[in-house]
């Protein structure tokens, strides 16, 4: 299982990368591995306002459809449209292929998310 340093991780297996006041959000390697081959990704609407824990999108695999929860509050300013045509990108590299970018005002929630080593420990407990 791949975990990258410098990202924030949620218990629902999303990652967040912070660049200025922008947050890139995606699903983790653990998430794509447990979902199996991903066949469809539902992206959020641009300009939609999301609170922490709101449904940001849906990832559908041959096994199941799973909601992706927003780990941070903000406004969706960009979505990864490449996932519409090629949802398998999430299997190939879930860290390069983010799902959406949120512009946020308040990053205090980041304190509640895990860092790479914390997330790794969390996943090994899940196993």
């Amino acid at each position, binding site marked *: 299982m791949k975990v990258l340093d410098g990202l924030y991780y949620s218990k629902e297996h999303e990652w967040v990368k912070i660049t200025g006041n922008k947050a890139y959000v995606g699903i983790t390697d653990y998430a794509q591995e447990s979902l199996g081959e991903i066949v*469809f990704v539902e992206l959020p609407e641009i300009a939609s306002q999301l609170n922490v824990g709101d449904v940001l999108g849906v990832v559908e695999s041959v096994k199941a459809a799973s909601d992706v929860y927003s780990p941070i509050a903000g406004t969706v300013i960009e979505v990864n449209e490449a996932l519409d045509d090629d949802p398998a990108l999430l299997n190939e590299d879930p860290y390069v292929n983010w799902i959406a970018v949120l512009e946020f005002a308040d990053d205090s929630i980041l304190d509640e998310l895990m860092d790479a080593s914390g997330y790794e420990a969390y996943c090994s407990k899940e196993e």
Partner: protein
Amino acid sequence: MIQKEKALIFEISRPGRFACSLPECDVPQKDLSELIPGELLRDSPPDLPEVSEVDLVRHYTRLSQRNYGVDAGFYPLGSCTMKYNPKVNEDMACLSGFANVHPYQDEKAVQGCLELLWKTDRLLSEITGMERFTFQPAAGAHGEMTGLMIIKAWHESRGDHARTKIIIPDSAHGTNPASAAIAGFNVVEVKSDENGLVNLHELEKAIDGETAGLMLTNPNTLGLFEKHIPEIARMIHEAGGLLYYDGANMNAIMGVSRPGDMGFDVIHLNLHKTFSTPHGGGGPGAGPVGVVKELVPFLPAPTVEYDGQRYYADYTRPLSIGRVRSFHGNFTVVVKAYAYILTMGAKGLRQVSETAVLNANYVLAKLRDLYHLPYDRHCMHEVVFSAENQKKQGVSALDIAKRLLDYGFHPPTIYFPLIVKEALMIEPTETESKETLDSFIKAMEDISGEAKQDPELVKGAPYSTVVSRLDEAMAARKPKVRYMPMSE
């Protein structure tokens, strides 16, 4: 050799070959463009297959032989209750008084049909502890939507417009949250506890003044009985909500316990599961919805009523949610279920559930040493294993399911419920003999051995089927839904 034949009807087509010979046309021929406006006509004739009668018959006979159903073999698809469909049910549904009536016939001429609907309503009400049923919903999820619309109508009739949330446990059938969303509710998920039951503490946190109701399957999809149901019902009712019973697992409790007595207010039944009518491609289904007394005014109109002398459809129901389907739903399915209930009788139905539970526990006891049992205790009508032990050798639940095809069995449900990793959900039903169960158990034992000794063998399965492992991801990502000639 014939069994391996995979050609499509288009591929065996040869120009000019045909299966009929029509006499010369004896009326004056007209050009099509004189009869139909040019813009509605095709530019070129459609690409229809041209085959002889014998090739046509062989082609479709071959395809029909590739069907697998309960008439062909064991079908332990969890949560689907693939029990045998007694053929006497079909005889009853074929009686001309049922099969050859028209829904617009005068009520006087279809008294028998209305009587059957009325009496099935009485029987299902007795079995479930409800007051009245509607037969309009065409299947389970349709029943869920209907039930949720009734819940909504009830709240609104009381001037309570704040009830926007439906609480659903994480072990629920996927149709539950989907139906709730379609009916205009927001879904609040409640996690299961370590015993696989609704977590009462989490439930308490989820309940508030916006709670319209709770949807629950009992026994749940782990095959476990929600023993705290009286407590759950009290919590929901005290908060002003209603309880919806997903009847998919009714086969476990008939004649033993009743949803009405557990505190449920609305229920759907799947006649094509519990009441032995054909399921899946053999359908259609029927998802009658039953309600407690207070909710009867909200049932879809018309209901079937009896005034002591005649049966009639009652359309004057001001609080009704309205029609959810034409006429009285899939009527002949109700005929089959009625035939089944009368065949079995009260004692027989209880025996159905007892045997269904016994069969599932037999499979559980026989396979528990080889397959991981995430919730280790007696189950109800179905048992959920996990392929975690086999996964250590790289063999997944999917691989085991595919390998079962080589052993001649329909696989169980896999990867559901979602809260069990590598889930294998086995529902044997009451209609299977010990010998059938034993041969299935033997196959599962053999596959477990193969997973240890030769995991690649299992991962490459199936080998004996007409086509080998299909690319499910590609089928979902880039589906081909019609024949395309090579030239296109």
